[in-house]
């Protein structure tokens, strides 16, 4: 089974580095990183990733703002935040994202659980 191509969008370089270290492996191949909402949209168009790990709080927009466009391009978007999902009320559910992972709970297993066994787009 081919590895799923993953884009990481977060303005915190430390988190990007840790996430790449943590996730790049048998199931996911990290194909790119972006530090802003616009950068994330740009990278999504350019790289056509299978999965986007999208931070909610970005310097130029919120993850909820850019999520629909990313989802429309066919990527499975997983929102992530240091805050728990209840801080955002129903926005997570209505964002078009596949799911939500707390940053401190991030792991290949957690991400896989959100994406489901069916894989991207399924």
């Amino acid at each position, binding site marked *: 089974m081919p590895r799923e191509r993953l884009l990481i969008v977060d303005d915190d370089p430390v988190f990007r580095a840790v996430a790449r270290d943590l996730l790049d492996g048998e199931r996911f191949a990290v194909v790119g990183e972006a530090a802003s909402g616009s950068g994330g949209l740009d990278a999504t168009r350019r790289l056509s990733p299978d999965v986007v790990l999208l931070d909610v*709080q970005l310097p130029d927009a919120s993850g*909820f703002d850019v999520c629909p466009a990313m989802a429309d391009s066919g990527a499975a978007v997983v929102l992530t935040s240091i*805050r728990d999902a209840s801080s*955002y009320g129903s*926005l997570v559910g209505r964002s078009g994202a596949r799911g939500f992972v707390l940053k401190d709970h991030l792991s290949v297993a957690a991400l896989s659980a959100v994406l489901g066994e069916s894989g991207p787009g399924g």
Partner: protein
Amino acid sequence: MAEVEERPRWWESDTVIWCVAAAGLLLGGYTTTAAALYPVSDPFRVVMHAVTGVLYLSAGVVAHYRYSANAIGPLMLVAGIAMFAEDLQLSDEAWPHTIGQFLVAFSGAVVTHLLLMFPTGRLETRVQKALMAVAYAFAAQMGVAVAFFMDQTSDDDHTPPGMLFVREHPVVGGLAEDTSQAAAVVVAAGLVVVLLRRWITGRLLMRRLLAPVILLVLATGLVAVVGLTLQAAFPRDGAVRGGLLRFYDVMYASVPLALLAGTLYFYLGNGAVNRLLNEMRALTRAGDVEELLARSLRDDSLRLVHRTPAGLLDFAGAPVEVRPWQAVTSVGGPRGAVLVHDALLKEDPKVLDVVATAAGLALTNQSLAATVEAQLQEVRRSRARILAAADKERKRIERNLHDGAQPLLTAAKLRIDMARGALRTDPDKADERLVQALENVQQSIEEIRILASGLYPQLLTTAGLVTAVRELGRQCPVPVTLDLDALPRLDPLTEASVYFVAAEGLTNAMKHAHATRARIEARVTGADVTLSVVDDGRGGATVSPGSGLARLADRVAAAGGKLTLSSPAGGGTNLEAVFPREPPAPTPA
């Protein structure tokens, strides 16, 4: 405001007054010369007569300049001319002599007229008008009798016979003299009654005005009675008669001074009004304005009060009664302020108008200053409360970090250190330490998350006001209807305040009011944005000091808005905040 006289009458003109005064002086020069040349004249009486005439003329001019609409001034000029005209009969020229004969008793009638009109410059009653008519009629009758039948001066060699002199007629002359004397007694008595009545019915202001005139009239009356008694007792003694006549002359000369004193006392000059306005500027209390007005207008009865549905109340709230002799003048200004004062003050409508307007402005200033001061104090208090609340919050966060995340992170660090040390020698122990450290780190993350989530609504930052308020509605266990379509974009400080109003309203509906429904509505009216949270709960909410609602009110006020709470017991709650659409000040990021 008091009504101001409309069109000035011809005798109010400066030119007319100066022309008449100049004519009077010319006439005075002529008649004084004639009197001095008259062979049997008493030099004292000649001088006194001239002085009296000049006093009347001067007093007339001064009175005119103090208050031109009062007829007292012009009539004093007429009295001065009449004084001189009497002496025309002493002239050695035929026509002036004849005219003097006609006017021989005229000055007495004019002075009577003056006293009857004093101080208002009007004849108020029919009795006064009748007295004046009698005085003039008998002065005219005396003039006719003298001119035609009683040429008293024709027995000297100095004056020519009157041009109209028919013949000496003792019966007609005697009759004229008797009736004139009788008329003089009637008029004098009437005059005393009129003046005394004015004194008795008048108030303090009127009495002060009248005092010199009344004293003069009474003293003259008293001396006349004593003198006439003496004369009757010693008919041959010329000294009694001469002394009496000289006394009359002095009294006569004092009348214009008494009238002028009263006029100057009553009518405030420009200087006095300017002083009053200057003093008024410095006053900061309504009571001080009242005191200054009473003192300056010389009306002890004057009160500065305000008109209310419950009647006139003074500024301490006590009812004030308008006495029959008082009048009420509106001063404009706040709270329908009016002056209650002696009605006599209306005789000087211009000054009353200026003074009333100035009092209104002073009160308006005082009211504005009081409002600003009250607002300033409230701003100071709310600023202190906001600072206190912020400090309290800082302490809470500081304690929370110290007691929560920091010891956990410290423990984690120590355990990681230990794990490194044991990594090669005892991998199992190292693994155990790392698991413990991981737990500590996870706990500290949770601690910080909980702490941070209570500090500021994340949704407001991430998703904006409308979404954040909608989320509040969704999360509320009570069904909430939202009407936020009218809500415009506002500055961040105001948006946060709007959010907190919605949050507090829903918290109240849910926790305290036990409501079954709530509604959040935004409206734009003019330059204001209103957010209201209405519930159908049990009401009875109050803004108690230190409560969430009190802090919210401060917060709303700091954003330039105003929070109102309507929460009748059993009648639901309406929490409403009105904000200016334009931000009150540049807002922090």
